[in-house]
């Protein structure tokens, strides 16, 4: 009961007019920041930290919360409309979301993302308030062997979920894995495949690769293809809003996404991107229309978007209960909390109860504000799609370049007096790679998945084997890892069995009838 009282008090303070204005400023800024690739929520919070020194604790917590949730949501807009993921967690959203947008269903895609983010944010924030101590215990019990099993599950399900040709999917995945090897190895501090290029020491930036493959690659493909260049994009077909059918297909995905995203976000080595991958493959498995995946299935937007936002709330679990920042944004928020004398850690809920509940209430308010801000904007956003193609793609190129420069504007390469940015050179090179992959029918997403998951899997495997001193049995020594491997086997097995039974064929038939 006490918990509810405290939450109610927190909500009362968060609902004061000036705090609502801070929330509005926060979500607006956060959304804006999430939209441009390159400028992440971490940098925004860092830039705004000095501003919040002037506010009262509740006010600045609310602004943090707004920026944080806004940033997580903002990335989905560009993913869906422009096929340009703003951050790694919205890469999956681009897969189905952009296909939907091209079929004139950009409105429902944006709506399911917004409402899904809201539902997930709401449930996950309540989870943060009431079950954080249990979630954190679960998250801490994950050893490197368990993380490795989780990565295996992600690899297996994600590769199975992409494209029709296993060979092409795997080829793309291995390009990503190869790129993931570049840079300084964490375990030994030695440099791999950097060829004495300073900029490569830290590896390939995921957003640079994603933006290049998705946005630049597609621009090149469109420009090179006369037929495609002349086809009209349907800006809006049917309603801008979600139909009853859309609601029916989305709600379960939102819940599944939340259920996947929250615990994975709470894991110190989890992350929103892993959660969104797993959610995507789950949706494909559970969908009644798996054949629509790859052609604009609404579940493929609803699930990952919910997972992405739930994971953002999940990140706050270790931050608040252990004082353990697992993302750069969380680290900066930690610094922000400290200036109010709020010491995140095991004693936080005991020592700083009013502030913690004010924060949790702020998260709820920010989440609601996000919905209020974004739903009316959908009608405006989809108008972007009516822009003539040559202008739209020119805009996308500008946008992608600006974002890359914003993330890493270092003019680190040069020919004589002319300085150029190495990051931009990478962007263009990967853009050409993206064009070639498209041209020859290879899927794009596995490359990015390989770059994200490859290094994680490698580090966890090596940690596990180092701790066990080379004993391979450690990999299947815990109930969690065994469960995850079983899940991986089921994930591969079930669709196979379904296909063998001919159900896939029936469903495909139904889908064609509908069209």
């Amino acid at each position, binding site marked *: 009961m006490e918990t509810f009282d405290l939450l109610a008090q927190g909500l009362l303070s968060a609902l004061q007019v000036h705090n609502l204005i801070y929330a509005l400023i926060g979500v607006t800024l956060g959304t804006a920041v999430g939209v441009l690739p390159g400028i992440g929520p971490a940098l925004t919070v860092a830039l705004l930290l000095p501003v919040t020194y002037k506010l009262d604790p509740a006010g600045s917590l609310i602004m943090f919360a707004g920026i944080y949730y806004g940033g997580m949501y903002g990335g989905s807009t560009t993913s869906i409309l422009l096929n340009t993921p703003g951050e790694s967690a919205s890469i999956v959203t681009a897969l189905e979301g952009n296909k939907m947008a091209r079929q004139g269903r950009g409105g429902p895609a944006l709506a399911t993302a917004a409402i899904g983010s809201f539902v997930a944010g709401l449930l996950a924030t309540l989870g943060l308030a009431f079950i954080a101590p249990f979630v954190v215990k679960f998250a801490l019990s994950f050893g490197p062997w368990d993380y490795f099993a989780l990565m295996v599950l992600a690899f297996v399900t994600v590769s199975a979920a992409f494209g029709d040709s296993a060979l092409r999917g795997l080829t793309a995945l291995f390009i990503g894995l190869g790129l993931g090897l570049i*840079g*300084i190895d964490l375990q030994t501090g030695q*440099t791999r495949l950097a060829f004495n290029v300073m900029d490569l020491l830290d590896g390939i930036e995921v957003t640079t690769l994603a933006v290049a493959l998705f946005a630049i690659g597609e621009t090149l493909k469109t420009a090179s293809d006369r037929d495609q260049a002349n086809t009209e994009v349907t800006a809006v077909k049917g309603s801008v809003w979600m139909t009853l059918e859309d609601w029916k297909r989305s709600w379960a995905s939102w819940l599944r996404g939340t259920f996947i995203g929250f615990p994975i976000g709470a894991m110190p080595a989890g992350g929103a991107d892993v959660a969104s991958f797993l959610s995507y493959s789950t949706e494909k498995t559970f969908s009644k229309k798996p054949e629509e995946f790859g052609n604009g299935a609404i579940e493929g937007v609803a699930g990952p978007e919910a997972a992405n936002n739930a994971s953002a709330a999940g990140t706050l679990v270790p931050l608040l209960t252990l004082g353990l920042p697992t993302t750069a944004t969380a680290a900066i928020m930690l610094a922000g909390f400290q200036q109010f*004398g709020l010491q995140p850690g095991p004693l936080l809920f005991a020592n700083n109860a009013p502030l913690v509940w004010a924060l949790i209430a702020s998260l709820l308010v920010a989440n609601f504000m996000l919905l209020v801000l974004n739903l009316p904007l959908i009608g405006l956003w989809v108008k972007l799609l009516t822009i003539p193609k040559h202008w739209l793609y020119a805009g996308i190129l500008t946008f992608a370049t600006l974002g890359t420069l914003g993330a890493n504007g270092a003019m680190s390469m040069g020919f004589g007096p002319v300085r150029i940015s190495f990051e931009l050179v990478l962007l263009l090179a990967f853009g050409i790679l993206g064009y070639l992959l498209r041209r020859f029918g290879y899927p794009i997403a596995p490359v990015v998945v390989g770059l994200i998951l490859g290094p994680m899997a490698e580090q966890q495997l090596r940690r596990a084997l*180092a701790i066990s001193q080379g004993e391979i049995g450690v990999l299947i020594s815990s109930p969690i890892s065994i469960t995850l491997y079983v899940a991986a086997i089921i994930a591969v097995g079930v669709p196979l069995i379904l296909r063998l039974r001919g159900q896939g064929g029936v469903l495909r038939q139904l889908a064609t009838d509908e069209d």
Partner: protein
Amino acid sequence: MNKLLLAALVTGALSAPAFAADYTIMAPAGPGGGWDQTARTMQEAMQAEGISGNVQVTNVPGAGGTIGLAQFATQENGNPNALIVGGYVMVGAILTNMSPVTLEDVTPIARLTGEAVALVVPAASDIQSVDDLVAKLKENPGAVAWAGGSAGGVDHITAGLIAKAVDVDPTQVNYIAYSGGGEALAAILGGQVTVGLSGVSEFASQIEAGELRLLAVSTDTRVPGFDAPTLMEEGVDVAVQNWRMVAAAPGLSDEQKAAITADVKAMAESATWQSALATRGWVDTYLDGDAFAAQLEADKSATEAILKDIGLVQ
């Protein structure tokens, strides 16, 4: 529009020439880390105290600060308004990464803060003291899994020095690198590793809550507020301190260097900086001039020696 503004701000800060006494501070790390927070706290203090009217912070992340360092040294030559934050981690990273640019290529100004490395075990561990740990280490070095920050960093160096001091081959140290104190902390709390190393402030709240047992601190004096001996007191002849510093561009005249040192000193003595230190849990270890140069030199040679012993540097 806000997005664009931010982008312009960030890129602009990198290229636009600064006005006189308007400092640009490079944090050679991403937003959120210790160096970034140091740079931003300096920014706040310098502006609040009227030392500089307009201070910009730029982030150039990567490779233990060596990417930022290289960029700083080549692009800011002779610029009296450019500062870079750095620290002990950079000393090791320059060696392991075989960085073409070293601290010789910039003008170190002053050490600002310092922190002891804490040696902790989970509360449930059977290791009660440094002696217990040393006994375990001598029995089977591989069976002691040490969790800490990236390979070649101050945590790894501390582990290597402890092994060496108790006559265990440093190459046998089973060091598990995590990408930050937070992730390492999770592994220690989860009981997946034997012992953990990170800055004391990183572990402070867990120690207070009784989740972690602090065996010892790495500095030559005890850390106020923590009931733990130093490694020296426990008979392990090791004294390491993780410190953060600020450096200026190469190619400055003595007058320029003196002017920057005066500004940094005024900043470090200011009330804003001091109160920020208190809230962040940083320890003031301000040191400039020849004394700092001597300490830097000593740290460099000691670090190179231990990294060779561990086998990270040939």
